[in-house]
């Protein structure tokens, strides 16, 4: 089944994909084509979204990586769509209108990493306290010591 999707993606988008695990197919994609690809996958049975997982590769000399993980509940297969971003331009189009459950996941990725999902209707602080907005704590550059909660001045 994954072989079939692999060929279809190759024919439709010209994108190479490879096996990630026994049940998972990894498709690397440009952000311009992300929405079309996700729509295409949704129409091909990958209708259950799992999550948006962002990885910060800046200490390794890379940028940020955004992974969309989708599951096909009937065939029991996964697909992982990967978008690489450079750390200068952290924007990616939203898929929250195609997969509404991914909207809070994108929101979480935004508050933790600062990746801006263009078109997401609600990029507000969700899990973090209000004073921590804009600190992006899951980035590798985040320093626990520097960003303590502002305490009352000792006299």
């Amino acid at each position, binding site marked *: 089944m994954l072989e079939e999707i692999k060929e279809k993606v190759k024919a439709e988008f010209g994108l190479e994909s490879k096996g990630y695990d026994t049940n*998972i197919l990894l498709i690397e994609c440009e952000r311009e084509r992300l929405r079309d690809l996700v729509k295409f996958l949704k129409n091909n049975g990958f*209708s259950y979204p799992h*999550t948006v*997982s962002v*990885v910060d590769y800046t200490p390794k000399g890379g940028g940020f990586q955004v*992974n969309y993980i989708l599951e096909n*509940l009937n065939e029991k297969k996964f697909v992982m769509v990967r978008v690489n971003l450079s750390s200068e331009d952290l924007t990616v189009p939203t898929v929250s209108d195609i997969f509404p459950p991914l909207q809070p996941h994108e929101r979480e990725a935004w508050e*933790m990493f600062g990746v801006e999902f263009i078109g997401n209707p609600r990029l507000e602080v969700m*899990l973090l306290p209000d004073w921590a907005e804009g600190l992006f704590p*899951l980035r590798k550059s985040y320093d626990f010591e520097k960003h303590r909660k502002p305490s009352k001045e000792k006299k």
Partner: protein
Amino acid sequence: MGNSISLAGYTFVVEESKEISGEDLGLLQEKLLQLNWGVQHPASGPMRLKLWVDGDEVVKVDPDIGYVLRLLEKLVEYRTWINAVVNVERACFMDDFGTMAGYSIAAEKIAGVEVPKKADYVRTILCEGGRIVSHLIGLGSFVGVMGVHTPMQWALIAREKFLDAFEVYSGQRIATASIIPGGVRYEPTGKFIEKMISAVDFLEKEFIPRYAEVFIDNPTLKLRSQGIGVVPKEKAVELGLAGPALRASGVASDVRKDYPYAAYGELDFKVVTKEEGDAYARYLVLWEELIESAKIIRQAIEGLPEGEWRTKFPIKVPPGEAYVNVEWARGCFGFHLISDGGTGPYRLKMRAPSFANVWALPEIMKNVKLADVPVIFASLYMCHGDIDR
């Protein structure tokens, strides 16, 4: 408002503050009220639902979460491969075995370590024990939100027996840190197996018949929960519901069956599904899974092989990544684990089922009665620890 409503933790906030007098007084009733359901509500736990109500009807719901954020995904990056289970298991204290098993399987996949068969079986026993412990609280608190607190006490009695078994096994009752990459931490002794069997015996012979008699086919409970918060099959997938809530809508999605891990591939059990998709169906799914789990534990104890219970796990793991799902008590828990060749995880993304369920609430709770809010909330069986992580 010194009446019983405010004592129960509700606060009423009129959307716009405006002086109202004379003729306008009648219009006040037509205004939407914003209601804070939680943080102090007995059923809510450490989270809040902002409800906009029109009279008795809920118009809009907005969950306000983040009260128990510990940033576990960041803390894991400062640990070694084996120490990280301490953070991973704290995603939720009720079923800590499932999360530890998922993380360990992901780490083993990257490192290319194969665990002994005995470790797989012990993991299965522990995971199912964790599931029973968690489901018992889920059942008890579901009836508890309707104001009957007896079933919770009964469930806690049965739960204690399993906690005793965990204590014999690992020395801890709740945060056991017992499943690690490379196997399980401790030898499953005869005493542990004995305790586990006696706990399952108590569950099957004492708890299940007594509880089933009173709280399963209960007419009042049915009246209160049947037809409430109905989620049809297509809608459940569209909303991204997870775990028992998804299965109660008729979607047979169970990681234990679909992508067998540990020893589940060799054991005989069935995936519980219901077609109705209402609060009562979700309650019944928990109940039947409890019975299935007890059977799985018996099978796993019978089939427990001889041999080692752990292998050596390397200190440095080669670069790589894995995405592993496990069927945790509350649904499929995903671990996206990445190694850069160091002594600990480079990044761990946890996909929590309760996080998916809590964001389905605004859709499910549209146009329900205010009194049904706690029922729907409890039936979705969420844990605040893994909403916030």
